[in-house]
């Protein structure tokens, strides 16, 4: 047997959790290999390791006969592997159309336009997606998303296709079509190997070779027949349970649903009539009606995105329906109805408890929030821990729990206040078969013993079979409403799944391309993996631009915001100190003292307030901030002046803001000298020279000494750092959070291509922002660049390349968008406002501030901007600043590249 991958002693941990524990395996080539087992047993980790997306921690792993942990080998073998990560459409771009998505992947593999076009059309044709080629990926159904994901994976003719749970959450018809498609692709005859991870055992039945996993360990391997034979079981579900270690098997009991005693007087717990919910043009729920009796287990069966969740949200009062009515216990739920909420327990689709709290804390919090009597809380929490087998996890953080346990905790939280009704939205999605059965046991218990009404949604057929009645849902509509047996009978099928597919086929125009797939290869020569490819770079740039254009709010906000801030800051940052409030304590009251004060109040710098009467009053009024300056004119001022006796005016200045105080000091001295000159002119008839020389003050570059001419050129660099860096940082971290970063890991794109490709669109936007600022400076502020325009534009281009680069650099060590947002703000705001020379030139700073000022690129662009706006300079005068910025660019880019991981940890 040829093997496509050889695993030897592979172990992998995340923090303290061991995901894969000493796995040794040979994976046969040329066939369908399935990894089976519940969620969180290490299947995904192993697949990611084999595809080279994740960094190998321990052990030896050979793929296609070479060591995948070696970087050069990984790069050379990467074009032969395709990897589709877990999660519906996780590596797709939701605002891009079907065609654009596939086309983007083609670019990442350096295919030219003609080749891409041919391949994309062939793939669309064979997957039946051609009619939808212009639809945004976000508006596709789950099944279509997975087909699109497959197209994206197949664009480069891989020899090995790795699919991580490709059909989880997809409706049964699409699921069937998906596997047929894979079969046809494999029958083309070029022996493509496929490795699949799945939690659906019925799917695994059709694979050639299975590897059963649990708890990071490999339980068994072999063909499905062999596995069933060795365990003496007739289906894989049972076989898998047999393979589990003994203590786990013991947890499992065969599930029996006791029949419901039907109470003829039963009231309706839920009544829904013609519920319709529209989001814009999209109808999520389309005239849905059903009723649920008290104590019944009622199931919603359907694929992801068919409207199950929306319907449930309407019932909980989270959404108000566009049309129709929903009644709980005979009343319509409203957003403010706190009483009804106490009677209902709700479990949302995604795990929505607080991950950072422990099991005990979560239970306690909810017991308290539902206001259980304080003396009962402890007992009730204890009861829940016991009943839901959570004792051993009492102090574990919810984040560290396996999925199955988390779901148990969610249920415990949902029933802690003994609700009469439970609304559970896909409670078992992604949970392993044993835990699922245990979970259902608890549900059945609640229903049959405590008479709790349970409304549950699921996409597992066998769970549907356990409900008293079910609704089959598809694309917002209820297809049928009956007991599971009734549904199977009405369609003359053997299983619920077949019956469901039958219903689906009735409504869906099935466009499975039944034609067999011809050779897909337009040309079979495989591209050499170049060190640098403009095609890949522009692939990223093109895609990012498309996404930006599809999000006009962000775009307009970014550009408009730049303009608005320019107006506010340009007018607002002013160093012109004016309208200083002063008052006088005139102890003289002579004509001379009044004249002195008039001289002050006549100036545009000073505003006179009502006179002072005592030193206490002076203290008080200065304290309140009413007065910035107080003049004290001594008694006999006028007389002394006339007699030529020496006299002294005392001035108190509010020193709270040193800059203002210094400026005031200058003004007051100036006014004082002025007064004396006037006085001399009035008495002597001429102005004597007060000094034996003249000082000629030449205010260069800004003759009027107006703040606006100094500040407008400084606002430009300020605004061109915040908005570009934040947009850039968020764009990268967003890819991390949403998962599309995988495409960077799994394709031959190099770090440099990724960096420049992502940066380009933001540089373009920032340059448009720059032009807006330039226009505002000239038209609104009347501040125009006197020096070389070309140099200014070139400087701005270099500068925004750096500032977007800063955003990129920050994003490389931020994991969440919040941290990226706050981090970028804190790390750029302080240096720009304080240390880059907007107020004080960097040469005047000292300590850390000076150091930051010297290395911060904004400093140099402020020089360039002021140089060109005010000083009429050109490139050769500013080449030092350009040189400094060039160094900054290189340093930032190199660090970004070093910190950017080409593999996941």
């Amino acid at each position, binding site marked *: 047997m040829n093997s496509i991958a050889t695993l030897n002693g592979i172990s992998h941990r995340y923090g303290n959790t061991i995901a894969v524990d000493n796995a040794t395996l040979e994976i046969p080539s040329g066939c369908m290999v399935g990894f089976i087992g519940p969620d969180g047993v290490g299947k995904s980790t192993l697949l990611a390791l084999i595809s080279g997306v994740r960094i190998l921690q321990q052990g030896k792993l050979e793929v296609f006969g070479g060591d995948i942990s070696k970087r050069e080998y990984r790069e050379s073998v990467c074009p032969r592997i395709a990897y589709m990560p877990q999660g519906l459409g996780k590596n797709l771009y939701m605002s891009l159309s079907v065609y654009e998505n596939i086309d983007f992947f083609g670019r990442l593999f350096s295919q030219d336009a003609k080749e891409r076009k041919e391949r994309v059309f062939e793939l669309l044709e064979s997957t039946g997606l051609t009619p939808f080629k212009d639809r945004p990926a976000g508006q596709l159904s789950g099944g279509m998303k997975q087909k699109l994901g497959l197209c994206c994976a197949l664009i480069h003719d891989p020899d090995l296709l790795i699919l991580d749970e490709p059909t989880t959450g997809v409706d049964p018809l699409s699921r069937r079509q998906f596997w047929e498609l894979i079969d046809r692709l494999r029958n083309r005859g070029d022996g493509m190997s496929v490795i699949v991870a799945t939690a659906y055992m019925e799917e695994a039945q059709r694979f050639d070779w299975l590897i059963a996993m649990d708890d990071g360990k490999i339980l068994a391997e072999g063909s499905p027949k062999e596995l069933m034979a060795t365990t003496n079981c007739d289906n894989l579900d049972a076989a898998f349970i047999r393979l589990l270690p003994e203590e786990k098997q013991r947890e499992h009991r065969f599930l029996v649903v006791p029949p419901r005693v039907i109470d003829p007087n039963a009231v309706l717990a839920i009544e829904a009539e013609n519920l319709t919910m529209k989001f814009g043009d999209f109808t999520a729920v389309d005239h849905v009606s059903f009723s649920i009796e008290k104590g019944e287990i009622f199931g919603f069966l359907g694929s992801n995105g068919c409207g199950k969740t929306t319907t449930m949200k309407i019932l909980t009062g989270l959404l108000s329906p566009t049309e129709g009515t929903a009644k709980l216990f005979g009343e319509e739920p409203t957003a403010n109805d*706190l009483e009804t909420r106490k009677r209902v327990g709700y479990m949302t689709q995604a795990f929505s408890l*607080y991950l*950072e709290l422990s099991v005990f804390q979560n239970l306690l919090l909810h017991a308290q929030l539902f206001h259980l009597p304080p003396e009962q809380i402890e007992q009730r929490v204890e009861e829940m821990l016991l009943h839901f087998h959570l004792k051993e996890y009492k102090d574990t953080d919810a984040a560290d729990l396996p999925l199955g346990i988390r779901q148990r905790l969610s249920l415990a939280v949902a029933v802690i206040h003994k609700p009469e009704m439970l609304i559970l939205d896909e409670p078992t999605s992604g949970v392993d078969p044993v835990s699922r059965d245990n979970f259902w046991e608890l549900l059945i218990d609640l229903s049959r013993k405590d008479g709790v009404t349970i409304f549950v949604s699921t996409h597992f057929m066998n769970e549907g079979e356990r409900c008293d009645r079910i609704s089959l849902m598809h694309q917002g509509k209820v297809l049928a409403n009956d007991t599971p047996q009734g549904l199977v009978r009405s369609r003359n099928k053997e299983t619920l799944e077949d019956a469901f597919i039958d219903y689906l086929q009735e409504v869906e125009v099935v466009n499975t391309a039944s034609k067999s797939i011809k050779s897909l290869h337009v040309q079979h020569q495989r591209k050499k993996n170049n060190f640098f490819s403009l095609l890949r770079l522009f692939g990223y740039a093109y895609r990012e631009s498309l996404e930006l254009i599809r999000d006009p709010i962000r775009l307009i906000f970014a550009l408009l915001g730049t303009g608005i801030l320019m107006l506010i800051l340009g007018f607002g*940052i002013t160093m012109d100190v*004016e309208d200083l409030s002063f008052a006088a304590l005139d102890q003289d009251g002579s004509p001379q003292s009044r004249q002195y004060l008039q001289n002050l109040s006549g100036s545009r710098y000073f505003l006179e307030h009502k006179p002072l009467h005592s030193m206490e009053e002076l203290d008080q009024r200065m304290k309140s901030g009413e007065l910035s300056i107080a003049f004290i004119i001594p008694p006999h001022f006028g007389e002394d002046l006339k007699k030529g006796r020496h006299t002294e*005016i005392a*001035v108190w200045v509010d020193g709270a803001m040193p*800059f203002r105080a210094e400026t005031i000091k200058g003004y007051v001295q100036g006014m*004082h000298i002025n007064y004396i000159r006037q006085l001399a002119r009035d008495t002597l008839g001429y102005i004597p020279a007060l000094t034996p*020389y003249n000082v000629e003050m030449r205010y260069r570059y800004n003759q009027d000494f107006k703040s606006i001419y100094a500040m407008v050129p400084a606002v430009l660099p300020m605004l061109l750092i915040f908005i570009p860096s934040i947009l850039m940082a968020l764009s990268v971290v967003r890819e991390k959070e949403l998962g599309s970063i995988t495409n960077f890991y799994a394709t031959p794109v190099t770090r440099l291509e990724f960096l420049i490709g992502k940066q380009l669109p933001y540089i373009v936007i920032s340059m448009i922002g720059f032009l807006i600022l330039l226009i505002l400076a000239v038209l609104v502020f009347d501040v125009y660049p006197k020096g070389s325009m070309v140099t200014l534009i070139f400087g701005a281009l270099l500068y925004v390349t750096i500032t977007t680069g800063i955003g990129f650099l920050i994003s490389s060590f931020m994991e969440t968008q919040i941290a990226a947002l706050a981090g970028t703000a804190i790390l750029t705001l302080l240096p720009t406002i304080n240390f880059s020379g907007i107020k004080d030139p960097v040469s005047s700073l000292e300590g850390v501030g000076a150091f930051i000022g010297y290395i911060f690129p904004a400093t140099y662009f402020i020089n360039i901007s002021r140089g060109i706006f005010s000083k009429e300079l050109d490139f050769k005068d500013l080449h030092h600043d350009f040189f400094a910025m060039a160094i900054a660019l290189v340093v930032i880019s190199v660090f970004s590249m070093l910190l950017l991981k080409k593999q996941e940890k």
Partner: protein
Amino acid sequence: MNHLANIFRLGIKELRSLWHDKVMMIMIAYSFTIAIYVGATATSTELHNAPIGFVDEDHSALSHKIIEDFYPPRFGIPQIISWTQVDTDLDAGLYTFVIVIPNNFEKDILSKRNPDIQVNIDATRMTQAGIGAGYIQQIINNEVSEYFSKGKTTQTLPINMLIRMKYNPNLTSSWFGGVMEMISMISLLSIVLTGAALIREREHGTLEHLMVMPLTASEIILAKVWSMGLVVLVSAAFALIVVIEGVLQVPVTGSELLFLLTALLTLFATTSMGIFMGTIARTMPQLGLIFILTILPLQILSGGITPFESMPQVLQNIMFFTPTSHFVNIAQAILYRGAGLSVIWPHMLAIIGIGLAFFFLALLMFRRSLASST
């Protein structure tokens, strides 16, 4: 009673969540310690190390004396340059001031020919230029009169003027810079923490979870307001007592308690602003943009960087409706001028008013955004 208990418990939950976000915790710690220290110590006086150059064509004893009178910390060490360098060096921004002492300066003074001394100022550097010009005139004046009087009492102006600085006698910049940096951080962090906490709950689906429980919108908002407000308040108290008073040795005149009380009121207003932004934004990038649009004016135009009364009246009127402008005002009054409640109450009322307005606006928007959420 139940309401209070809910608010309290939800708030504790917020605190636990924040504690788990280590990057955020590091950022908070950085903001209230290192950032304040670095911001405060970059300059020690308003006119600080102003780079100055001289063209000395006189080479007299007087011109040498004048040049020697310029020294740190107010001025940089004077550099002697040639006449031809004046324009290029000013263009390159090497100096803020270049003083040209002409040939025969000393002789001309002696022979009462009133020679010209030229001071070239780079007026794009507004702060240094304005203040420095005054200092330069004074220094030259003192030197010249002392030089010629040779110890004799000089003839003085008929009216002397004695200027004294209240509250900060030496106009030490770090007194001001440290406190203003702290105020910036208070508003920045309180807005980010609450706004982002709301978006995070929305993105993680826990908001829905809260909404199906018997909790009211106001409880959810108030829980975030008090918990995030508390975190910032405690950090600010630490920054004030340990960093500003302890390390930076800034003498605080007024009552720290009163200051922290006003900080508390301000936090109510800023956290409400944060929630308000969280209800407008749908995604984190949108919140980021709204945040930047708000925080820049708040930081720069509240009176902590440039004098409030110098702004155009329209902007003053707009900024009147932000809590930070009042807070900056109060902070200066309490910490430097030692003002008490009797002086600052109008600003406190304004902050409370603004806070309530944002809070109810946020509540309204929050209810509406929940009604339309998917």
